């Protein structure tokens, strides 16, 4: 049995039976039938619930005359992402802000939850950054098709028609490489942050790990920013006016 966090243990006690049955109905045999929910998924669910509650709280307290502190924070995040996407994408960038803000807040919360004792960062497990990168990948291609229709495919054929047989595999590889590089960067940074804190905690348990926790917070913010920024850059490439 893998080592379970307290929240994972609660989830497994409550839902192990139905989750195992669901996996078996999909012809997947879980490694641990009594604990099919891993820590990363439990932490993701916790972050998801936290964000839903936070959004509902902001929604219920929206006020134009007397905005509260939470509203200020969310308006700040939304304004920052909108301003940034306007700079990169251009005048039609407003529609993409909700996705980018949700992606950014989700990754940031996933990164920062590891700082709290009793929790761990789900982004330190490769599947979670891969899921985020695949969401970004599917989203920017969908928006590309929405924006340009079938002619979006011309984007992959290169500037000259006779080069298309060579350019199409190159473009497919380079787009898939974006998914892999987004995944590896986020995963490796968060995993390394956790490991460094853990190693120094085992060497000097007092004081020193706090420095590395501070570093972890800094890396979390920077990696979230880079992830969202690169997604915006890819989105700008997909919905650019001239291909």
């Amino acid at each position, binding site marked *: 049995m893998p080592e379970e966090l307290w929240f994972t243990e609660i989830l497994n006690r409550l839902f192990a039976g139905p989750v195992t049955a669901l996996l078996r109905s999909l012809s997947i045999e879980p490694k641990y039938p009594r604990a099919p929910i891993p820590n990363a998924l439990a932490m993701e669910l916790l972050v998801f619930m936290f964000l839903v509650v936070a959004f509902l709280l902001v929604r219920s307290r929206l006020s134009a005359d007397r905005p509260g502190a939470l509203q200020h924070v969310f308006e700040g995040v939304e304004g920052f992402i909108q301003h940034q996407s306007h700079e990169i994408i251009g005048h039609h960038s407003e529609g993409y802000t909700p996705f980018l803000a949700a992606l950014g807040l989700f990754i940031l919360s996933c990164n920062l939850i590891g700082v709290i004792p009793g929790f761990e960062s789900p982004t330190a497990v490769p599947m979670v950054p891969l899921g985020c990168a695949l969401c970004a990948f599917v989203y920017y291609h969908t928006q590309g098709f929405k924006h340009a229709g079938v002619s979006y495919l011309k984007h992959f054929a290169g500037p000259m028609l006779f080069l298309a047989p060579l350019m199409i*595999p190159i473009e497919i*590889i*380079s787009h*898939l*490489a974006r998914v*892999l*590089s987004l995944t*590896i960067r986020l995963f490796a940074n968060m995993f390394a942050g956790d490991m460094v804190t853990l190693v120094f905690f085992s060497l000097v348990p007092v004081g020193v790990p706090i420095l590395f926790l501070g570093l972890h917070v800094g890396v979390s913010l920077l990696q979230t*920013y880079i992830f969202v920024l690169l997604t915006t850059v890819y989105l700008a490439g997909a919905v650019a006016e001239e291909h």
Partner: protein
Amino acid sequence: MSPPSPAPKDQKSEDQKSEQKKSLWLQVARYSQLAFVLPAALVVGWLFGALLDKWFHTTWLYMAGIILGIVAGFVELIRTVSRDMQ
């Protein structure tokens, strides 16, 4: 007496500075991506080639995949650099 308004020239140079700061961050993100894209493209090309080798029972397509991956990585590199030089 109304307070003296700030000189428009100073405001303009401050705006330019903040623009430069933002484009610097954008460049940091883009160039840090290149360090990952080069090996990632190679790995994706190799995986593609190995998959095709398995399907078609050949032994050389993985090499072609690796070469295509390297080319794809360099195409991305040249594209990023030429975009910033414009």
